[in-house]
Structure formats: structure tokens, C-alpha cells
């Protein structure tokens, strides 16, 4: 069947389903729409995912990412219940005789104000919501997780969730359900963050003080999003307090941070947040002149302004700017992300909400050497994304929620350019050809409720990727060798690849306390990271699908059982998933990726699969809260020319993965937290023989990833001491944490060496990174 025929068939199916579920509902009297925004009354922040229900029924809706809700009901009297976890519920009686605007402000529960609330959603949403394989964490829960060097880190918290694992010790890279770390779409206020780590991956670029909402989709990715195979991490920053001037900050061992929020007139508010490490300040105290001249820091800054023009129009401007810098007197490097988004929320009618977004996302790195005028060199690489999105949300009745829209990204990659830096240089300058592409997507999706018990979700995303000629000769490869070359006029589209990405899900609500769900999603990825290391480095560049590189595809199926216990105090879930991946990209043995303009020559293609069982028991609130998760999984790949063309374990295949996270309020002044993680050892290729070359023993290896490192486990603990009295405007606390509390020596890598004094003898040496890392952080708010 041709592509257009397939697309037509899928679209037809969509509309038949839509018509069936929308217009075959019992004939109803005239409806009116009640709509508005749901906010936190203390700071004016939009509450994402707040529930609105008609009291005593399951009929209702949830607020969207901008706090907007809309409910169309037949005329009459209703009692609406507004609820959000950690906030006091609010019941409002309304009489609907016409379309009504009702903005709601919810008040935070005084007790839960200081208590850690793990989830960011209302108590039984996991049962009733038509989505699965989704994890939400509150900023408080993230903050409560004991942190490496006291640096609260959203990604480190996410790594404790079922189906998610760190790519290596201490890394901010993560693998979701056996996928690669470049298969996660990380969005910060809708802008793609290409490299989410500082300091070689040990810290993420996200400053928790500026974060409002974190959602991780491990599967069942909404049709609204695409472009990555494995997951979507959607991070939204705070809008800025529109009630009063506030501040949040902290002073830690390696960095300090400050976030300021303020109303900006009657209709606007803003936030500015910054963080910087100061290891280089201590270097100035060194007696070694070389160390004094070294730099070693990272910083990041978030800024956001929102302006409410009127009830139907609102504008948001947000930016992130972060950079790492390391240098000594001979060499240096710096790298960083910048993202900017401009959004316009427009409410066309109480039933139609829209959001238009302009996005800029940039990543670059710069290397330099400082040896002599003749030898000094520099090298830089940059990627620029310019995008726009138009998203529409239509709520024709309480039973249906239709979403549709268009996304566009223009990619401009500069893979590398540089050379000698002075006129006296003996080194030439080179520039690899720039790469240009356009990525488009249109989508339509509907979520429908049938008789309160059954929720259906179905959608279709059409994506297309177009390579735009840079005017240079293009190589066409066959069997990984150049077959012929062709040159296109600069600016001309010379290759278009397209995919249909259907998404579907069903939720069967058995009772208020348990439900069964199933989902299917197809995702396509058109750009990938040129890195074959386990966790990546800042020097990795992204490359595009092309005439030689097909987009990677993933079909994911999942079923789950969701059960709440003890009046929703506990949430339990079990999910089974299966992922089938096509056109998976990997690299040939000994691939040369850095500074190689012919990266496509180094690629190899194949397929993969992964499956697993994820179980989670979570207690969301109370003096003792936290979660226990267990994942049983398997992940395999088969790539041309690798492992003699046989199947092998993917680098993220860890059959057993356990996380226990617990927070306990000892007293009003003290909260203690701990987490323990266990994971099967990382797959590894070990030497099983050796050959002698030039007086050295070169390893002969086992099959790819045939062995495993020793199992990984670690306990982290922390305690937070509230220093201020309740009710004070200025509140402060001390946080003490101990990372790897029992000093487990987890291998970061294992190296194989020859004995110096017995050159015919070899030995294995484990490199481990962190044992007993204590830290103390002073946090404050006002």
C-alpha cells in the first residue's frame, strides 16, 4: 500500500471514530460552556492538571498546561468541584444559562505546604486519566531526593522512576525502556534542550527552583509531540509570582542559586533565576600559578515574563541560557544551550483554546589550544533550531477533547569549523559543510469518554523531514560505500522522508480505585547524536536523516493495571511494554566521530526490541511518603557488521532495577529522606584473549556486551532542618546530604592493564567515582 493510501485509510479511521464517539451520543439539550483558569492563590501560578468535576459524578475535565479548563454541559444547576493535590478542594455552585467564565484560585493545604507531596496530580487521576506510561513529579518531591553534592536535580529524580535508568554513574543521561539517551525529547517551555547536562553530565541544566511541572512520557506519547523514539520529558518553568515579590535561593558547596519572582504591573509577572558554580573561586587561593589561571565553572539562567492582555489573550516569553567553561593555560573548552520561546495563548471561544509558539533552540561547543602563535587552534560546532507550533484544543462536549495542530522546525547544523587562530599559524582552517533541514508535523487526536467507564484516545501524527541542499556534493552510499555523488542547487530540497505515527489508547475504569489501560504509539526520529559512548559527551554532534540515513522507528505496545489503595493514599501500578525498533542507528567498530565530516560512512543500521514489566507502589502524601519501584526488562539490538551480525544486549539492558525513595517528617523542624537503588550490572565487552603487537598485549574481546559489570547499588540519605518559625515571611533551612552513604564502589569503567614489572601479566582495574560524598546546602525563601 502506498504512503498516501495508508495516510488516507488512517485519517478515515480517525474521522469515523470521531464521528461515532461525538455524534452518536444520546441527543442532548442545548449546552453551555463553563471555562476559565485555575491558579494557585498565593502566587498566581497556573495549576497544570487540576481536576474539575461535577460533584458526585466522573464527568469533568483537567486543566491544560496553561491552567485553562473548559466544560460544556446542558443548562442547569451544578456543583463543580475543583481539586489539585496539595491544595484545598473548592466546591462552587453554578447555574448554567449561558456560556460562563469562571477563574478559580485554589489555596494550598497548610499542612501540605511543608510536607513533601510526591505526585503532581490529584489523587485518583492515575486511575481515571486516559494515559499511561506517564510519570509526574512535583518540584517538592524532586527537592526531597538526596542530591549529589547537594545539587537538586530533576533528571536524577527521574532516574529513580520505573523504566528509567542512568546511563552511567552520576550521569544526567537517561535511558527509557531500553532506548538510547539521544532518544529522549527534552523540552523546556516547549524548546528542545539538546544537551541537558553540565560538568560532563554530572549535573543537569535544570534549576529546580524555576521549575513548575515535570512530566515524563515513557510511552503513549501524545500525538502533539514527536521527533524522538523513546520518551518525552516535558519541563515547564514557573510563570512568576503575580501576587508579590518573592525569592528562593540557596548556597551549597559547589554552587549558589537565586530565583526572584515578581508582579510586573497589574497584568504581568516575571521570574529570573540563576545558578553558578564557584570551584574556580577556590582555585584563586591555590599557590600553583597554573591552577590560579584555570577556569572551572558552569552557570545557567532562566528568565520568564507573562503578560495577560485580557481574558482571552496571554503572552509568555521565556529563555534559558547556560554554559560550562573549563580551561587551563594550554587548552580550554566551553559549551552550552540557549533556548527562547515566545507563546501566545488565545481563546477563540470557551470551547477552543489555542497556543502559538515561536521557538529558538541552540547548542554549541568551542575548543581552543593555547600553546604558541604557530600552534594555537580552535574548533567549534553549533546547532540552531528555529521552530513554530500552532496547537489547538477543542472541547465540543465533556466526552470529547479534540487536539490538532502543526509543528515546524528548521534545523541548521554546523558540524565543525576551525583551525589555526593567528596569521602566523602553520595550521590551515577548515569548515565542514553546514547541514540544513526542515521538519514538519501535523497531528490530530481525540480523547473521548464513553459512559464514564471507558476512555478512548486515538490520534494520528504525520511527520516529514526534508534535507535542504548546502550546494555541496552529496554522497549516496550503498552497502556503506559511496556509490555515486550528486550536487543540488543550494537551498533546494533534495530528500524528503515521511512517516505516519498513529497513537491510540484505551482506559477501562473498573471502579474509582482501579482501572486497566492499554496503549499503542508509533514514533519516528529524524535526527540523532553522533556518539557511540554509553552516556555521551558535550563534544557529540547531532546529524540528520538523509538519503543515506532512514529515520528510526519505534512501535510501542503497553498494557497496565492501576490500583489505588486506602482511599487513594497509595497508588499501585503494573505495566507491561514491548518496543519494536526499526532502522536503529549505531556505529561501526572503532568509528571516528569527532572531527569527521563523513560521519555517515561510520554508521551501521539494524533493528532492536525491548520489553519489560514495571511495578510501582507510591504513597503520595503523609508524614511518610515516597515510592518503591521494580523493573524487569530486556533490550536487544542487531546491527550490521557488529557482533558478527548477531543479536546482542543493548548498552542499557539491565534486567533488574529497583528504586526505593522515602521521605519522613520526623518533627515540624526535621524531614529525613533516603533513596536506595539497585540495578543489574551494565552490559560490557570483556577481553577473553590477547595478542602481542609491538611489545604490548592487545585484547581480543568477547561478543559485544556478553558480560556485565558488578551490580550497581547505592544508598543516599539527607536531612532537612527548618530553621525558621512557621508564619515567618523569610524561611530558611539547612539540608545535609550524603551520597553513596555506605560507600559502595560502583564501577564507572573497568580498564585492563599490563604489569609494569611483569609485562607478560595483565590485570583488571576498576575506576569508580563517588563514595561518601557529603554536602550541606542552605536554602531560603522569602
Amino acid at each position, binding site marked *: 500500500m502506498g504512503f498516501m493510501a495508508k495516510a488516507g485509510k488512517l485519517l478515515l479511521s480517525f474521522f469515523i471514530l470521531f464521528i461515532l464517539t461525538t455524534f452518536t451520543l444520546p441527543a442532548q439539550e442545548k449546552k453551555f460552556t463553563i471555562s476559565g483558569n485555575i491558579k494557585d492563590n498565593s502566587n498566581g501560578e497556573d495549576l497544570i492538571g487540576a481536576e474539575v468535576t461535577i460533584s458526585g459524578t466522573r464527568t469533568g475535565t483537567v486543566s491544560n498546561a496553561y491552567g485553562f479548563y473548559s466544560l460544556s454541559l446542558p443548562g442547569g444547576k451544578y456543583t463543580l468541584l475543583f481539586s489539585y493535590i496539595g491544595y484545598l478542594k473548592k466546591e462552587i455552585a453554578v447555574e448554567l444559562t449561558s456560556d460562563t467564565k469562571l477563574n478559580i484560585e485554589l489555596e494550598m493545604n497548610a499542612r501540605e505546604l511543608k510536607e513533601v507531596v510526591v505526585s503532581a496530580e490529584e489523587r485518583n487521576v492515575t486511575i481515571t486519566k486516559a494515559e499511561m506510561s506517564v510519570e509526574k513529579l512535583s518540584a517538592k518531591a524532586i527537592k526531597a531526593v538526596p542530591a549529589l553534592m547537594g545539587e537538586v536535580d530533576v533528571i536524577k529524580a527521574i532516574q529513580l522512576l520505573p523504566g528509567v535508568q542512568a546511563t552511567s554513574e552520576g550521569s544526567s543521561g537517561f535511558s527509557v525502556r531500553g532506548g538510547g539517551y539521544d532518544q529522549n525529547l527534552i523540552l523546556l517551555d516547549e524548546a528542545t534542550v539538546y544537551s541537558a547536562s553540565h560538568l560532563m553530565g554530572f549535573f543537569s541544566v535544570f534549576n529546580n527552583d524555576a521549575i513548575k511541572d515535570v512530566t515524563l512520557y515513557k510511552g503513549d506519547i501524545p500525538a502533539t509531540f514527536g521527533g524522538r523514539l523513546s520518551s518525552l520529558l516535558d519541563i515547564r518553568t514557573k510563570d512568576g509570582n503575580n501576587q508579590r515579590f518573592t525569592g528562593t535561593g540557596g548556597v551549597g558547596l559547589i554552587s549558589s542559586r537565586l530565583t526572584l519572582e515578581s508582579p510586573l504591573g497589574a497584568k504581568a509577572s516575571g521570574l529570573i533565576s540563576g545558578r553558578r558554580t564557584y570551584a574556580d573561586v577556590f582555585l584563586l587561593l591555590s599557590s600553583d600559578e597554573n591552577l590560579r589561571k584555570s577556569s572551572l565553572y558552569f552557570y545557567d539562567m532562566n528568565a520568564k515574563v507573562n503578560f495577560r492582555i485580557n481574558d482571552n489573550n496571554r503572552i509568555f516569553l521565556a529563555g534559558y541560557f547556560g554554559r560550562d567553561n573549563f580551561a587551563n593555560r594550554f587548552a580550554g573548552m566551553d559549551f552550552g544551550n540557549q533556548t527562547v520561546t515566545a507563546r501566545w495563548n488565545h481563546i477563540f471561544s470557551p470551547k477552543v483554546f489555542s497556543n502559538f509558539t515561536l521557538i529558538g533552540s541552540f547548542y554549541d561547543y568551542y575548543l581552543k589550544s593555547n600553546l604558541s602563535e604557530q600552534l594555537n587552534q580552535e*574548533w567549534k560546532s553549533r546547532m540552531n533550531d528555529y521552530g513554530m507550533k500552532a496547537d489547538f484544543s477543542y472541547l465540543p462536549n465533556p466526552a470529547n477533547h479534540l487536539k490538532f495542530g502543526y509543528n515546524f522546525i528548521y534545523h541548521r547544523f554546523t558540524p565543525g569549523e576551525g583551525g589555526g587562530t593567528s596569521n602566523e599559524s602553520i595550521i590551515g582552517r*577548515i569548515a565542514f559543510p553546514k547541514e540544513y533541514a526542515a521538519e514538519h508535523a501535523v497531528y490530530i487526536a481525540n480523547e473521548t469518554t464513553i459512559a464514564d467507564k471507558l476512555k478512548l484516545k486515538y490520534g494520528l501524527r504525520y511527520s516529514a523531514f526534508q534535507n535542504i541542499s548546502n550546494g555541496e556534493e552529496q554522497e549516496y552510499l550503498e552497502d556503506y560505500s559511496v556509490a555515486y555523488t550528486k550536487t543540488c542547487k543550494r537551498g533546494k530540497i533534495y530528500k524528503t522522508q515521511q512517516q505516519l505515527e498513529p497513537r491510540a489508547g484505551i482506559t477501562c475504569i473498573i471502579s474509582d480505585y482501579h482501572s486497566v489501560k492499554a496503549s499503542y504509539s508509533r514514533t519516528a526520529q529524524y535526527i540523532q547524536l553522533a556518539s*557511540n559512548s554509553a552516556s555521551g559527551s558535550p563534544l557529540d554532534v547531532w546529524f540528520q536523516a538523509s538519503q543515506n540515513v532512514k529515520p528510526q522507528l519505534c512501535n510501542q505496545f503497553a498494557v497496565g493495571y492501576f490500583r489505588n489503595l486506602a482511599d487513594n493514599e497509595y497508588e499501585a501500578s503494573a505495566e507491561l511494554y514491548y518496543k519494536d525498533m526499526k532502522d536503529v542507528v549505531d556505529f561501526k567498530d572503532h568509528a571516528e566521530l569527532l572531527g569527521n565530516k563523513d560521519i555517515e560512512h561510520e554508521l551501521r543500521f539494524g533493528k532492536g526490541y525491548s520489553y519489560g514489566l514495571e511495578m510501582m507502589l507510591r504513597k503520595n502524601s503523609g508524614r511518610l511518603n515516597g515510592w518503591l519501584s521494580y523493573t524487569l526488562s530486556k533490550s536487544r539490538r542487531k546491527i550490521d557488521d557488529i557482533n558478527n551480525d548477531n543479536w546482542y544486549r543493548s548498552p542499557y539492558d539491565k534486567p533488574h532495577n529497583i528504586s526505593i525513595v522515602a521521605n519522613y517528617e520526623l518533627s515540624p523542624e526535621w524531614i529525613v529522606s533516603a533513596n536506595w537503588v539497585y540495578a543489574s550490572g551494565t552490559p560490557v565487552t570483556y577481553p577473553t584473549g590477547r595478542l602481542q603487537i609491538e611489545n604490548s598485549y592487545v585484547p581480543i574481546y*568477547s561478543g559485544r556486551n556478553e558480560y556485565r559489570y558488578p551490580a550497581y547499588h547505592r544508598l543516599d540519605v539527607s536531612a532537612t532542618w527548618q530553621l525558621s518559625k512557621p508564619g515567618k515571611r523569610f524561611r530558611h533551612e539547612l539540608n545535609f546530604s550524603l551520597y553513596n552513604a555506605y560507600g559502595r564502589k560502583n564501577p564507572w569503567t573497568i580498564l585492563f592493564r599490563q604489569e609494569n614489572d611483569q609485562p607478560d601479566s595483565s590485570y583488571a582495574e576498576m575506576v569508580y567515582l563517588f563514595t561518601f560524598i557529603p554536602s550541606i546546602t542552605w536554602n531560603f525563601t522569602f
Partner: protein
Amino acid sequence: MNTPLYKKITLIGIAFLPVFLSSLFSCTERIDINTEASAPRLVIYGSITTDTMQHSIKITRSGGYFSTSKPEGISHAAVSIRTDKETFTLQESSTEAGLYQTGKSVFGTEGETYRLSVALDFDEDGRQETYEAVSYMPGAPRIDSIGFRPSLLADDYLEVAVWGYMPEAEENYLSFHLYRNFEIVNDSLQGFFIIDDRYMDKKEIVDVSCFYLNQEEEQSILREGDIITVRIDGITKEYAAFIKDAQSELWGSDPIFSGPPANVQTNIISKSPSESILVSGFFTAFSGSKKTTVYR
């Protein structure tokens, strides 16, 4: 001319950052690893050069990784190196099993293609297997002078720099060796220093720092009057890749900057394919030039 740009970048990135990280956080500890020894491989390694000398091919059987003995040499092989014009037959050394040598007056010629043939019964099934490898002999560089200076990169180090010219070929790969009083200093795989000129504009070798000698370590201290020889070989792209890959496997991998470990590719081809015999090693031809000076 210097280390090509991409290598310099690699040098900055790969060397600087892990060193920085290691200094901050890492510790090492010896551990016991139990791996099942792989089936022994046939290893053939050797070369022919432009020097007039006995050229050698070593044929061994690979051992387990944690073996403590030298690899076993394989005797009774028929070994020859030939061009279209001549054939050199190699004889097994009477003092070292598995070492096959040409006569003393043999030398290679730039531009020639050399073919190695080996016939032996590796699996001792009574039938001989044959193996072949081919290598082109690239041109040799010219060395004009050698210089010495205290290193900018580290205290107590002395840099040895050279001046000269690359061969006129489009792409050149050069391997450097250093001799002190006629004793080789970099005699191990780690000591191989290889550069290429893929991204260079000129064929001139200007002030290339090729060796960094720690003047606090006895084996690399230079004293006045020492006779210093630098040898630069023009090697093939394939041999440069083989050495580079072997070096990276010796260095080992880490999760940030390295790809997965992999066996080093060989150019030895079995002419009697047997699934039970795996072969490793390399045969190459290279041309060399030397320059000698006295250290003052």
C-alpha cells in the same frame, strides 16, 4: 605542519577532560574478573621496510587475557613476501619459535606492492591453511633537523621537535620513533606517535613536537653528548588505523568519550576459510628516514 586538526581537537577534548574529571572524583582498585578464555587465534604480524636488514614476520597463537606466559610461537610455517619482480622467502629463527626472517640484504622499494603468504597447519588437522596480506609501500618523509626545548605543557619535560618535508602524496601517515644512543625509546605500542596531513595545507614539517621526555625518569633523561636519532616512517592509512585502534584498546574505554571495545581489524586474509580458525595481526610495508644529532 603539526598533528592534524582533528587529532589536536581530540587531544584537547579527550585528554584534558578525563584528566580533569579523574582528578576530581575517580579512584581505582584492582578487581578479579572471570572471563571464559576465547579460542586461540592465529596471529601474524610483521613488516618489510626500505632499510637493508632482516625483515621479520612473527606467527603466534593468542592466549587467554590473564595468561602470564608469552604467546606460543608457531613453527614450521612457509612464509614469503613477494612483489611482481621478486620473492623473499623467510626462514624461521633458530633462537625464537614463530619468528620468520628474510636474508640480511633485503630491502623494500617505495611504490611497490608487497604480498605476504603464509602456509601452516594451525589447527593441526594434517592440512595446511594459507593466509595472505597485501601492503603498498608509501613514500618516506625527509627530516632536515631535530631540536630540543623545555616543554610548555609540563614542567620537567623536554620536547623533541623535527623539521622536514612530507612526501608529495595526497595523504600521508607518518609514524615517529626515537633512539637514544642507538637504543629505541618508544618500543611499545603506547609509544607509537602517528600523525597525518589530511587537513594540512603544506607538505612542510615545521617544529613538530613528537616526543615529550620526562627528565625525572631515568629511561628518558637526555644527557649532554647523547646521540639522538629520530626515525619517521611513511606508513599506509590502513596500518595507521590498525595502530590507532590497537592503542585505543590498550587505553581502555570510559562511558563519556569512548565507544564500545572492539577487536582490532586485520588485513590478513584466510585463503582456506575455516570457521574454527580466527586470524588477527597485520602485515605492512613502510619506508623510513632517519636523522641523528648530538644532544647539547
